[in-house]
C-alpha cells in the first residue's frame, strides 16, 4: 500500500445523508472478480442525472468527497472503496461513517476524515461559493484546510499510523504466528468444524 501523508485536490460537495454502499456501487457491478476497474460503477445511478455533482466539469478531477452523515451504510462490499479509489478519490469527509465502510477504507488506502456536521456544512457552502476549490487533507496533523477554513478531523489512530507507513495488515499479523498457534492449542474441543 502507498504511504499517505497529505493530499491536496479538488473537493466535490455531496449534499446527501445516508449515502449507502448500494448507491456508491450497485450490486450489479459486484459480479466482477477483479479488484480494480470500478470507476464506471461509482454512483452509477446518480450519474445518470446530468445535474449530479460529479457530472459538473469543475469536479472532473475531484479527489476529495464531502458528504453528509452516515456515509457508507449498508452492505459490507469493499467494492465501494475500490470504486471511490478507481474514480480518483483519496479522501471522504463526513460527519459520521458506517463502521464496515470505514474499516474497508483504511485497508484500501482511502482516508475517512470525520468532522462535525457543522464543518461539513461550512465546506459545502465554501465549495458552492467557489466550485472546484482545492482542499488539503493533512493526515500527519489530522487537519483539513480549504480557503480560510481550517478544521481538525478524527481518524482511528492505528489506521492513521498504518496509512502513514503504508503497511499491510496481514504482514503485521503474520509476525504473531506463535501467539496464534498458542491460542489454537487451547481452543475447546467441542467447537465445530466445516470439513
Amino acid at each position, binding site marked *: 500500500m502507498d504511504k499517505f501523508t497529505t493530499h491536496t485536490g479538488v473537493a466535490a460537495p455531496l449534499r446527501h445523508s445516508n449515502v449507502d454502499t448500494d448507491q456508491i456501487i450497485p*450490486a450489479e457491478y459486484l*459480479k466482477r472478480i477483479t479488484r480494480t476497474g470500478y470507476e464506471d460503477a461509482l454512483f452509477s445511478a446518480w450519474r445518470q442525472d446530468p445535474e449530479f455533482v460529479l457530472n459538473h466539469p469543475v469536479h472532473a478531477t475531484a479527489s476529495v468527497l464531502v458528504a453528509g*452523515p*452516515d456515509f457508507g451504510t449498508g452492505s459490507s462490499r469493499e467494492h465501494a472503496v475500490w470504486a471511490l479509489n478507481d474514480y480518483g478519490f483519496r479522501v471522504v469527509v463526513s460527519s459520521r461513517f458506517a463502521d464496515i465502510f470505514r*474499516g474497508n477504507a483504511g*485497508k484500501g488506502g482511502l482516508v475517512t476524515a470525520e468532522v462535525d456536521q457543522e464543518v461539513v456544512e461550512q465546506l459545502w457552502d465554501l465549495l458552492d461559493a467557489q466550485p472546484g476549490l482545492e482542499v488539503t487533507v493533512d493526515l500527519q496533523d489530522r487537519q483539513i484546510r480549504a480557503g480560510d477554513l481550517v478544521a481538525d478531523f478524527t481518524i482511528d489512530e*492505528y489506521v492513521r499510523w498504518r496509512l502513514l507507513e503504508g503497511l499491510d495488515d*496481514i504482514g503485521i499479523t503474520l509476525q504473531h504466528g506463535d501467539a496464534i498457534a498458542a491460542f489454537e492449542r487451547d481452543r475447546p474441543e467441542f467447537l465445530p468444524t*466445516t470439513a
Partner: protein
Amino acid sequence: MGKTLAEKVWDAHVVRRAEGEPDLLYIDLHLIHEVTSPQAFDGLRATGRSVRRPELTLATEDHNVPTLDIDKPIADPISRAQVEALRANCAEFGVPIRPLGDADQGIVHVVGPQLGLTQPGMTVVCGDSHTSTHGAFGALAFGIGTSEVEHVLATQTLPLKPFKTMAINVEGELPAGVTAKDLILAIIAQIGTGGGQGYVLEYRGPAIEALSMEQRMTICNMSIEAGARAGMIAPDETTFDYLRGKERAPEDFDAAVAYWRTLTTDPDAAFDADVTIDAAALSPFVTWGTNPGQGLPLSASVPSPEDFEDPSERAAAQKALQYMGLEAGMALKDITVDTVFLGSCTNGRIEDLRAAAEILQGRKVADSVTMLVVPGSVKVRLQAQEEGLDKVFEAAGAQWRNAGCSMCLAMNPDKLRPQERSASTSNRNFEGRQGPGGRTHLVSPQVAAATAVVGRLAAPSDLVEV
C-alpha cells in the same frame, strides 16, 4: 465489575493484546460466498499465502444464483464466472463448499445455523454485513470487507478495536399479530440508521426471551440496519433446544451447554448505552422511504418532510418521497404494490414461510400482484415441500422458487423494473436495491402475504375471513 455478553465472547478470543494496537481476535467460523471472496483469494495467490484453517471455513453460493432452471448452467456469463471462480478457489485452497445443487446450498446466514455450525460464544465472520444474524445464538458475529476476508483466510484472526455495548431492552409482550420483523423495524426507526454505530447491540428482556431462534435471527440480522456491527442475544433453553441434534452440534453436548450457560451479561455489568422499547405498544410496521430507519406503523400515513426537525432527515425524507413516488399524507394502506417478495436472510426460514402460507391458505394473490417465494436454503425448501407449503403458495398464485438471495439485492435475474413497487420481507429499501428504479417497502412475512392478497399494503387483520 462484571462483563457484558459481548465482552465475555471478545475476551475469550483475544490472541494478542498490546498497548496502542487493536486486539488480535481469533475467528471460530469464517463463512464465504462468491461475491466478496474472489479478490481475497487473488491476494493469497499474489503473496503465496495459504488458507490457515480451511476446516473452520465454509463456502456457499447464494448472491448470484438463479432461482429458476438451477439444473442448467447459469445463463448470465458474469454471474457464472463468479460462481465458477468460487468453486475453483475452494478446490485450490481446500475450502469446503456447498454449491448449487447441494442439499446444504442456500443463503450463507441460513446455512450456518441450520447445520449447527453457529454456536454460542463463537466468533463468526463473513464478507457480508448480515453476518449479524448469527448473534441470535450469543455468538459475536459481524460482516467484514474483502481485505478482511483475505486476512481471516490467511491468519484465522482479525485485528479489531473493541466495540462499545448497547442494551436494547424490550419490555412487555408483543401483541398478537406483531412479529420480530415489526419489532426490529420499530427499533431501527427509534434509534436511526446511525444509532448503533460503533456498538454491539444486546437484545434483552421478556419480549426477546419469548422469541423462537428463527425470530431472534430476524432481529439480529437487521442490527446492521441500525448501524451496529453486531447484535447478540444471550443463549438460553430455546437456543440449546434448537442446536440439539443438529449435524454439527457438539458431541459432548452437555459440556458445551455448561459453558454456554455462562454466556450472559453479569448483573453488575454496565452497558455504554441503554434503549428501552415497549413491545406491547407495537403494531405491524412498514418502511415508506429509502433507508430502513424511515418506517412507521402500517396504520399511519406517509409523513411530510416538514415533520422532521433535523435538516438532514428533512432533506432525506424529501428525496425519499420523490424517489418512492409517494405523497405526504396518504394512508400507507392505500399504497398499491406490484410485487411481493418473501425470502432473504431476514425472513427466508421455515417459520417465515409457514406464517405466510397460513395467511395465503384458501386465498388468492391479487391479479395485479406477482409474488415470489424464495426459500433461504435447499433445506428450507424441502422442509416446506414436506409440509405442503409449496402447494399453498402455488394454489394462491405465488411462484415457488429455488433457494438464494434473489430479489433482496437483485444480483440474479429476479429484479424489479423501474418504478415497480414491492412489499419485501428483505432488509434494505435503498434506492435501486431490488433493481434500478425499483421501490421497496420492507415488511414482515405476514404483512407480505396479506399485501399480496389485497394488492395494497395490508395487515392480516385487514383480510376478510375465509
